[in-house]
């Protein structure tokens, strides 16, 4: 059964599956709870639903509480469709039984969801309007529309729009997700979404590990300091990045000691990665925010890297930080590296030779003791094209300048962090540095992945460098391996 269909939903995105539904509900000016189910079945909450159904039998002899006397927000299970995910609010203003702990069982046995959905679909919306599901949203409401869902090979992406209240002055909104709505929902930080100049923000929630995701947006209220430390060995860094069943050997780091380490507090700085490994073309302590400099960076004496030169087709790499190691797994498995590439070169050197390349080379090819890397071994690529490496040149929001302006390149993968003196091109620029890191811009969360064969040694080389000179540093934040993020 269809429930609600968000504007922009493309049925082709979910072939052979029942239509997804989205539920919206205004909460307050600063907090909105939204659920968007990629699949209509909430398998993980089946035990809770069974309990709810059992209670339903007991409750049928008592009268439900009228909607007007109930909390607007909560976890509302459908008595008519106990296999559905719970609603995050009493969307249809139905009477319900209070189950305690903020949970309710809707008295919806007579409610015709199908007719309601058809009524919603029958409305034709003009550009700029969105379906108002259970009520009209005022200009001061906060709500999210689910525009599309893309099922990847190993993960899922949701295309969302956060419609922000017109009266809000918040420069960014933090997006969270949960796997299910339970008695105590565990909301995970997903990403910080800067508000663009037209008062809304369009985001792709990428690499969702589950078929079901519930989203919540709220005004950014926390901003803490990024923690970085070089007090870690290259072996520890390499082991952080791969699953525990993969053996890491022959770890070697080339570069300045200050250019590599680990970081924490990423989420509360707005990064989509909370903790992991950082490699920089300068000093990693320069990564901490706020972004108060348009040219932060320093020469740390790192060497050039011939493979990065090959990638860019020149010879200008300098100040490289290179982590190399061998991996061998007893089973064939997927190696997945989630990362954010950030640079101080943005936006003013977006189209220039100061491109600061980043690469993850994976190879099984070697001659003697030397591993052979080629351009095709690089798995850190711009998603739109299977051949383009991630650099300032290949992913940017352009540069707004009367004479030296640069048009944006692969801008949907770019996130601005407000250079104090230079601007990206509208609508990719933002009004203030909402990410508490020093870099002027970065990529969205990206993933590089490859399958490795069982019992075969693969060589991994993760490298980043300055290019053309040693200033205006760049860095890559690599997510530590976890079962949720790296499968």
């Amino acid at each position: 059964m269809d429930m609600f269909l968000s504007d922009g939903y493309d049925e082709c995105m979910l072939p052979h599956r029942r239509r997804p539904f989205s539920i919206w509900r205004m909460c307050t000016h600063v907090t909105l709870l939204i659920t968007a189910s990629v699949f209509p079945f909430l398998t993980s909450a089946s035990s809770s639903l069974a309990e709810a159904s059992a209670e339903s039998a007991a409750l049928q002899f008592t009268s439900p509480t009228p909607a007007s006397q109930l909390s607007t927000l909560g976890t509302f299970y459908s008595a008519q469709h106990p296999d559905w995910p719970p609603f995050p609010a009493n969307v249809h203003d139905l009477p319900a039984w209070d189950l305690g702990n903020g949970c309710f069982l809707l008295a919806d046995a007579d409610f015709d969801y199908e007719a309601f959905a058809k009524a919603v679909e029958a409305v034709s919306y003009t550009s700029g309007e969105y379906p108002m599901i259970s009520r009209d949203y005022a200009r001061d409401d906060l709500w999210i529309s689910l525009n599309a869902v893309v099922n990847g090979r190993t993960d899922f992406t949701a295309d969302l729009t956060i419609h922000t209240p017109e009266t809000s002055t918040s420069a960014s909104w933090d997006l969270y997700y949960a796997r299910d709505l339970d008695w105590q929902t565990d909301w995970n930080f997903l990403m910080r979404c800067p508000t663009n100049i037209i008062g809304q923000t369009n985001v792709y929630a990428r690499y969702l590990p589950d078929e079901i995701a519930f989203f919540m947006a709220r005004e950014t209220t926390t901003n803490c300091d990024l923690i970085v430390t070089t007090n870690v060995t290259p072996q520890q860094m390499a082991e952080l990045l791969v699953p525990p069943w993969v053996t890491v050997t022959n770890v070697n780091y080339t570069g300045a000691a200050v250019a590599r380490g680990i970081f924490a507090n990423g989420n509360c700085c707005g990064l989509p990665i909370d903790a992991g490994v950082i490699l920089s073309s300068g000093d990693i302590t320069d990564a901490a925010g706020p972004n108060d400099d348009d040219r932060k960076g320093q020469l740390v004496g790192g060497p050039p890297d011939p493979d990065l030169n090959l990638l860019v087709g020149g010879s200008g790499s300098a100040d490289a930080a290179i982590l190399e190691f061998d991996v061998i797994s007893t089973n064939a498995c997927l190696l997945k590296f989630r990362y954010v590439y950030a640079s101080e070169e943005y936006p003013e050197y977006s189209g220039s030779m100061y491109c600061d390349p980043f690469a993850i080379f994976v190879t099984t090819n070697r001659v003697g003791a030397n591993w052979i890397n080629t351009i095709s071994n690089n798995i850190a690529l711009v998603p739109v094209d299977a051949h383009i490496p991630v650099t300032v040149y290949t992913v940017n929001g352009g540069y707004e300048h009367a004479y030296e302006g640069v048009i944006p390149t692969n801008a949907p993968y770019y996130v601005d962090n407000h250079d104090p003196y230079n601007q990206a091109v509208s609508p990719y620029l933002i009004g203030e540095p909402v990410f508490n890191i020093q870099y002027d811009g970065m990529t969205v969360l990206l993933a590089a992945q490859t399958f490795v064969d069982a019992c075969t040694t693969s060589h991994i080389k993760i490298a980043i460098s300055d290019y053309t000179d040693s200033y205006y540093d760049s860095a890559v934040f690599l997510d530590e391996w976890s079962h949720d993020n790296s499968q």
Partner: protein
Amino acid sequence: MQKIIYTLIASVCISWALSKPACGDLWVSNLDQFPIGSAAVGSDFWIAQSFYIDISDSNQYALDAVQLLMNPATGSPNGFAVSIFSAPSDDSPRDYLGSLAGSAAPVAGGLYTYTASGITIPGTGFYFVLVTSSTPTNQGAFNWSASDSFTHNGSWYINSAYYTSSDGLNWQKHIRDEVFQMAIHATIVPEPATGWLLGVGLLSLSLCRRRLAREFCIFHRA
């Protein structure tokens, strides 16, 4: 026969010595780059162009010479001086390493060579070619030619950063602006182990030579 051998050895040695440039090996140069202008040098306007050797290079170098590309001077400057400084990190000139000998009045445009003596620069380090003069720029200025891009050769780099100062004490950093034109010549200093090996080799040769000479004399006496 022996005379022929000695003559051959001597010829090879002289040829090898002549094949070496007078001022050591050229490690990095941006003299071939297109000049975009120049900057005035005076007692009130010091310039320090940075160069560095990256961390992959563990050699020790004896600095032999620095060549500077100068544009014609303006006014009546004098007392042009060139020195080498280092810094523990990417920072302004801090530690004086030595002065170079050469023309104190590079007033005509062209390439000037300044030779060094006893200046050792370890690989993995940050260095500066620092120029100043004894006259203020309003009296006259030497003009150091500049290009606009960073240059590197192997582990040696002429960096896209330079520093300016009005007194040689307080420095202001400039990056991605101008890169002053120069070439750096240096010679790798053998490591101590190499020196010991060389010493032992020479001593052995000397002993052999004495023994051969003694036998040669005996032969002649006979």
